[in-house]
């Protein structure tokens, strides 16, 4: 198999916008997304000998970027940009507890206002107001819950990767996913019922 041709600087920088679009919703910071794109392209220059041309260049670059994002999230966990206000893993601070009464029954119909979800998700995601609502509700999630949710539902990470990237124990991943899903559901329910 012939070796792939080394891309020119211009060809590499052409991928910068696509990489930026990939990074931004995952790290939620323009500055961090730009840094990650820069680091990705620099790594690509240094390690181009490892690119075998089996996948498209963009796909290879996205793979590098994905790992950079996971490293970035791990770093954030160890050096948070803002102090945590509560222990998100603690049973005492379970934010879903208030959704149920003393016998564990729903206080409020959990599916009310969510009939819109019957529509194909790709079609829904095409609508700016739906995207904005989902993004707003994701942004309201506590940091660890948001990370775990995005790592699972968007990045399709396995449990071990989630543990490593979000610095959580294996045993807490299921609990954190449950909480993030319920908080997201409740937030969207409030948004759409009040609309």
């Amino acid at each position, binding site marked *: 198999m012939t070796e792939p041709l080394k891309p020119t*600087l211009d060809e*590499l*920088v052409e991928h*910068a*916008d696509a990489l*930026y*679009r*990939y990074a*931004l*919703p*995952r790290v939620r910071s323009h500055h961090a997304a*730009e840094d990650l*794109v*820069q680091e990705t*392209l*620099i790594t690509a*220059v*240094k390690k181009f000998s490892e690119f075998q041309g089996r996948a498209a260049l963009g796909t290879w670059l996205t793979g590098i970027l994905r790992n950079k994002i996971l490293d970035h999230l791990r770093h954030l966990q160890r050096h948070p940009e803002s102090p945590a206000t509560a222990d998100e893993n603690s049973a005492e601070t379970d934010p*879903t507890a208030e*959704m*149920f*009464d003393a*016998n*564990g*029954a*729903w206080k409020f*119909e*959990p*599916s009310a206002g*969510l009939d819109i*979800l*019957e529509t194909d*998700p*790709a079609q*829904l*995601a*095409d609508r700016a107001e*739906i*995207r904005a609502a*989902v*993004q707003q509700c*994701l942004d309201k999630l506590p940091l660890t819950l948001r990370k775990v*949710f*995005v790592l*699972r*539902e*968007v990045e399709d990470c396995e*449990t071990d990767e989630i543990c490593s990237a979000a610095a959580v124990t294996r045993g807490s*991943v*299921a*609990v954190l*996913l*449950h909480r993030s*899903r*319920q908080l*997201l*559901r409740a937030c*969207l329910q409030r948004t759409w019922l009040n609309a």
Partner: protein
Amino acid sequence: MVYRLFAAVAGPLEKMLGITCRDYTQLASVKLDQPLSASERRRYFFHRLMCDICRRQEKRLRQLNRLASATLKQAGDDAMVKLDDEARGRIRHRILEELKNGSQ
């Protein structure tokens, strides 16, 4: 109304057996990611038989996951989102520096 009546009557028993709506919701979330144990499956199916509110809610949860995933992936496809010329310039400059340092 029916749900509230049922919850009031059966609630304490469900709580004792670990098959409340709250328990079911957690199991339904776990089930999205991994198989349930035998005892978890029994509790899950028993409550599911009795509670159509939880059955509906579980379906919504799956739909919601797909929507959130589609939304974030869509954000990645939005051609309006791009680096400005200054940022692209910074990136080019940094790569050139790396190439220069690498060749020394």
